[in-house]
């Protein structure tokens, strides 16, 4: 098991190196002149040259790369041109919002997707199965911005049950962040009212974000469960008298969860990088919104910072999935 873990972590390290190289290449090659970009749109020749020296862009490429890596290691992502604020500080402010949104969306996806998939498999081709199939197709097909607007209209405008947008009411005094996740922070500080308020604000965007993910988890889990329930070891376990619920929830589901887990990992990676539309519709102050507004302003450093964070998140998700695989599947542990 230890070699398995070490190998996975080693692979993740290699991927991280690849990611850093890639962003370095993009940052130094893609824009016509990074010094001009750094100096700003109205800079004169001398200012550009000054920026070039200041940012070390006149140094050889390998030196620049080492400096880039050491900056990253100190969580230095450079400064935003538009606001002049350090990108690291911006990310520290915006990323928790996106993270919180994605965690809640993923929890919705898992808590509904896995049991519904299981239920559909048990009632294969019955009414429940048909219903969840339609539900899943809808989930994948609905454009999130449209679905988001629809929910806002129904739950905020007509019913008035939930707020339209934002993370908290503008009249609420924000908490001094601990983790940056409002739901967690409010609980840590024992502020139940704030927890409920944050929950009411996150409900709609998280639901919209979770929908395609929920749909895919449901479908994959369903087909894997159908497969597992047909397996020889289930026939044998039934013949030996294993209780029906244990047969389904332990003997079959554990096998079905392996492929489902792979999908969950991929979905998590995509989710973090695709919150833009949902964040825009619900005015959610996360990295998606930050990246898009920076890109529109031609502000390069924040975009690179978000790219790194998204890539890092993808890698961590992959690593966790690999490790969970090891926990679930004894054949991998000894391999």
């Amino acid at each position, binding site marked *: 098991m230890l070699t398995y873990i070490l190998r996975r972590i080693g692979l993740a390290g290699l991927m991280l190196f690849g990611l850093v190289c890639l962003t370095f290449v993009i940052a130094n090659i893609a824009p016509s002149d990074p010094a001009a970009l750094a100096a700003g749109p109205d800079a004169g020749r001398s200012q550009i040259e000054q920026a070039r020296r200041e940012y070390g862009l006149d140094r050889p490429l390998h030196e620049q790369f080492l400096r880039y890596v050491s900056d990253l290691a100190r969580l230095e992502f450079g400064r935003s041109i538009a606001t002049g604020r350090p990108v690291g500080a911006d990310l520290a402010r915006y990323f928790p919002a996106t993270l919180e949104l994605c965690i809640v969306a993923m929890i919705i996806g898992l808590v509904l997707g896995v049991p519904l998939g299981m239920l559909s498999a048990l009632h294969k081709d019955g009414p429940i199965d048909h219903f969840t199939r339609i539900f899943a197709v809808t989930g994948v097909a609905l454009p999130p911005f449209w679905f988001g607007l629809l929910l806002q209209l129904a739950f905020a405008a007509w019913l008035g049950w939930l707020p339209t947008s934002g993370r908290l009411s503008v009249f609420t005094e924000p908490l001094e962040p601990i983790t940056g996740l409002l739901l967690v922070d409010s609980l840590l500080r024992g502020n139940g009212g704030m927890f409920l308020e944050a929950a009411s604000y996150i409900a709609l965007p998280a639901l919209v974000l979770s929908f395609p993910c929920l749909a895919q988890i449901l479908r994959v889990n369903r087909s894997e469960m159908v497969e597992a329930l047909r397996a020889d*070891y289930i026939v044998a376990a*039934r013949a030996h008298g294993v209780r029906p619920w244990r047969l389904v929830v332990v003997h079959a589901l554990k096998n079905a969860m392996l492929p489902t887990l792979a999908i969950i990992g991929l979905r998590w990676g995509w989710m973090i990088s695709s919150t833009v539309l949902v964040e825009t519709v619900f005015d959610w102050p996360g990295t998606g919104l930050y990246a898009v507004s920076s890109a529109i302003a031609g502000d390069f450093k924040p975009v690179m910072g978000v790219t790194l964070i998204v890539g890092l998140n993808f890698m961590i998700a992959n690593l966790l999935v690999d490790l969970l695989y090891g926990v679930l*599947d*004894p054949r991998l542990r*000894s391999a």
Partner: protein
Amino acid sequence: MTTLLEIDDYRLAFDTFDGTLHVLDGIDIRVEAGETLGVVGETGCGKSVLARSILRLNPTPPARVVSGEIRFRGEDVLALPEAGIRRLRGSAIAMVFQDPATYLNPLLTVATQMEDAIRGQDAAAGGRVRSRKAASAVAADLLAAVGLPEPARLLRSHPHQLSGGMRQRVLIAMALLGNPSLLVADEPTTALDVTVQAQVLALIAGLVRERGLALILISHDLGVVSASCARVAVMYAGTVVEEAPTGELLDRPLHPYSQGLIAAVPDLDRPEVRPRGIAGSIPSLLHPPPGCRFHPRCERATERCRVEKPLLRPLLPGRRVACHHADA
């Protein structure tokens, strides 16, 4: 002797997209307590489906019981509610399966699988459910009883860490957990090396003797069946065509199919006699031949065989044959 299992005119069909498969067509079998019965036949003749029918393990749909009864100790298994059939599974009737690699759950330890079986049987019986620890002790005893060393270590292993022979022994130990009175072994040695086959067969024979179990041993291999069973039923395309004491069947098969089957086995004592195959191939169960299902391949087939299904009739003491033309 008391009759343990009676299967009467049992017909089972599978409803598929292509149509209805008439998999079992009027099976008649009887097993007394402590008796050993072999069931032989080619692949696809319905042996495994028959074995699974006894514990209602064929998924419905697609499987559908057309007619007949399966009585265990006089109780109709097919009419039992779900709770009733669960009371039999593992505790009264147990099964040993074909390929131990696929019939053990790859993700669960041997201990978990055996404990779940014991505790499930306890729950179905309506009594107190034993603790995992108590169940584990029972499991360890049985692993030792089937000749596996270091039961404690074995219980902690996963199936992929065991050899094929060990896995088959684990499956046999699992079948014995509930102290059953009938053991149904479906091709228990097919997936094993020849040397291991002999050991597993000897193990099953020993357990049957020691515990006074009744055994239904299903195999495509006449040799396997003749070594372990007192009586043999020969199956062809979903029907039992002949039933006889093992020695008598081997010496003098009465049904043309049994005769063909035995002639197809190479005789090591007389290598000059070449084994003969049976002409033709097994019929489609989608449109089985009318009358006797064997008639298209039978040298003795007449008009009557094409129209009238022969019933399994007693021909000699202890021998039954389903053929219009067989005579003592």
